[in-house]
């Protein structure tokens, strides 16, 4: 390395990342589990379960990703502020 690796973020707290990871894993695995929804009934307004269930997962995923965004970006902000505080506090 030609110059020191100046950290842009302080150390991470694992909690928010674990929760976000679980939410995202749910959003990936459940829509891919075909045996869980490959049925005709119950129909909704004439639409077989297979079709409306998958469409329903679109807004659900959007919410799961949205919550993950909120968790991760909050932690990200805290880590950045931690680094800045140290930089101002120190002699650098």
């Amino acid at each position, binding site marked *: *390395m*030609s*110059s*020191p*690796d*100046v*950290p*842009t*973020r302080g150390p991470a707290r694992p909690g928010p990342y674990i929760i976000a990871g679980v939410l*995202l*894993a749910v*959003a*990936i695995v459940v*829509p*891919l*589990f*075909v*045996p869980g929804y*490959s*049925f*005709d009934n119950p*129909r909704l*307004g*004439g*639409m*077989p379960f*297979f*079709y409306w269930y*998958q*469409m329903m*997962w*679109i*807004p659900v*995923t*959007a919410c*799961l*990703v*949205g919550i*993950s*965004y909120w968790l*991760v*970006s909050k932690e*990200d902000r805290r*880590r*950045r502020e931690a680094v800045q505080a140290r930089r101002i506090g120190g002699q650098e």
Partner: protein
Amino acid sequence: MNGVTVPLAVPDRPVNGVALTIVILLFILVAALGFLAARWRRGEETGLHSLDEWGLGGRGFGTWVTWFLLGGDLYTAYTFVAVPAAMWATGAVSGFFAVPYTIVLYPIVFLLMSRLWSVSHRHGFVTPADFVGGRYGSRTLSLAVAVTGIVATMPYIALQLVGIKAVLTVLGLGSAENVLLTDLPLIIAFVVLAAYTYTSGLRAPALIAVVKDLLIYLAVIVAVIYLPIKFGGWDNIFGAAQTKLGTVNPATGRPAGVFIPGAASYSAYWTLALGSALALFMYPHSITGVLATKSRNTIRKNAAVLPLYSLMLGFLALLGYVAIYAGTKPIDLNGAVNPQLVVPQLFLDHFPAWFAGIALAAIAIGALVPAAIMSIAAANLFTRNIYRDFIKPEATPKEEASVSKIASLVVKFGALIFVIAMDQSAAINMQLLGGIWILQTFPAIVAGLYTRWFHRWALFAGWAAGILYGTIAAYNVVNPVTKANFGGSIAAIPGTDVQVYIAVVAFAINLIVAAVLTAVFRAMKLPEGMDITRRSDYGADENDPKVAEIQREYPLAEPGPTV
């Protein structure tokens, strides 16, 4: 799909004057916007004379512009035309998998793309191959990623043209007798597209995408409310689809399609969805959209709001079933059935002429936006990873921008000739291969975002093994009706009879080869290559200092290695 149908009476396609006028007017509006885009948020000092400005729109797009740009980029005319066409022809497994595909896409984007953004922002990477080159210090690996990207993108652009052509055909332009006249409107549309992409770069599709999406949302919302009411509700529509797809096709002795997947198609359905989702953000045009954003979080925020497009995609797919009930007849100029014409034909048959014009223009413009972004992305790959790395290492930013502009023209005209000179089904086969190929760049790009464990030569060998297996396996799929090779994207896992998406098996082979050889090469202590990135790069945001600036703060350190 082609060639088997007994020629029906060649349809007498009158030109629909009202619809055509509206399409032309909207096209002129969009072209004007494309040229005006050159002045929009223009870089103060450089104008458009660098790849950052021309090829990435100044790297300054916020949440809203990015939402439109990525939406316009990912949901292409091919999605709007081919997914409903597949639903109309063979049902859920080949069409509706697009819904779970675009659902699982966004959690994956959320996980991966902010890291790629951060490291690219700090080092000025413009393409995924730039990142691979910088991370592994291997021009060969970076070249492999770049060439795969360019080759996989070309048929994708060609398919956008197929979408525009479908709209023009339905409108009554062209005839089976005069080839030049048939393709003239397409050529005119494309020359205009090439001209404004050349002058405005990525700003043009970003601005046009706004118009395109408003038109598409309007057309789809009206279609999914108006058409089911007109046909007496979804009950009738799904009933007609179930009957048609369950009817046994005498040519194959099997049902025409799948209404609800049975146990035998589970693995095909979910591997198609997962494989396509993993592949999509490896396409250079998706990454161009990501790198054009202003901050690290723009792309994460978009992962939460982009699924709105998937909802639209789902309803559009169901229009394929609506067309079954409506008895839409997608007859091409040569008298054969062409499923790609289903949605445009449905719109024209059942909407008033003026609204059909708006809906058809939405599809055609929906093809122009991704075609522009794809040609820019392919041109950037050529400029950065072939021209600069292998031909002229000392190229200035200004030279890079002009090379990229010219390369974008070459790419577009290559695709145009492809569509005019070759059979359209060739474009679809190439597109299928493109998806399999592009997924093979995933280990090199994505693993590198998290770990430096893989060895560069092992990644290269994995890439080669994946491409080789994918190409052979796709070649061996024979269409049961036409007996042509490259007949589909599903094949059995070797040694079993589990049917899956070929790209996923090729990807697994790629990963295994890369992992095993990494262990071997490390034991042999083969040189690792210079990694110019550092830990802090992967979490950097817009306000963090760039690496070049950090080096200026420490003048005593030796200068960093050039890429």
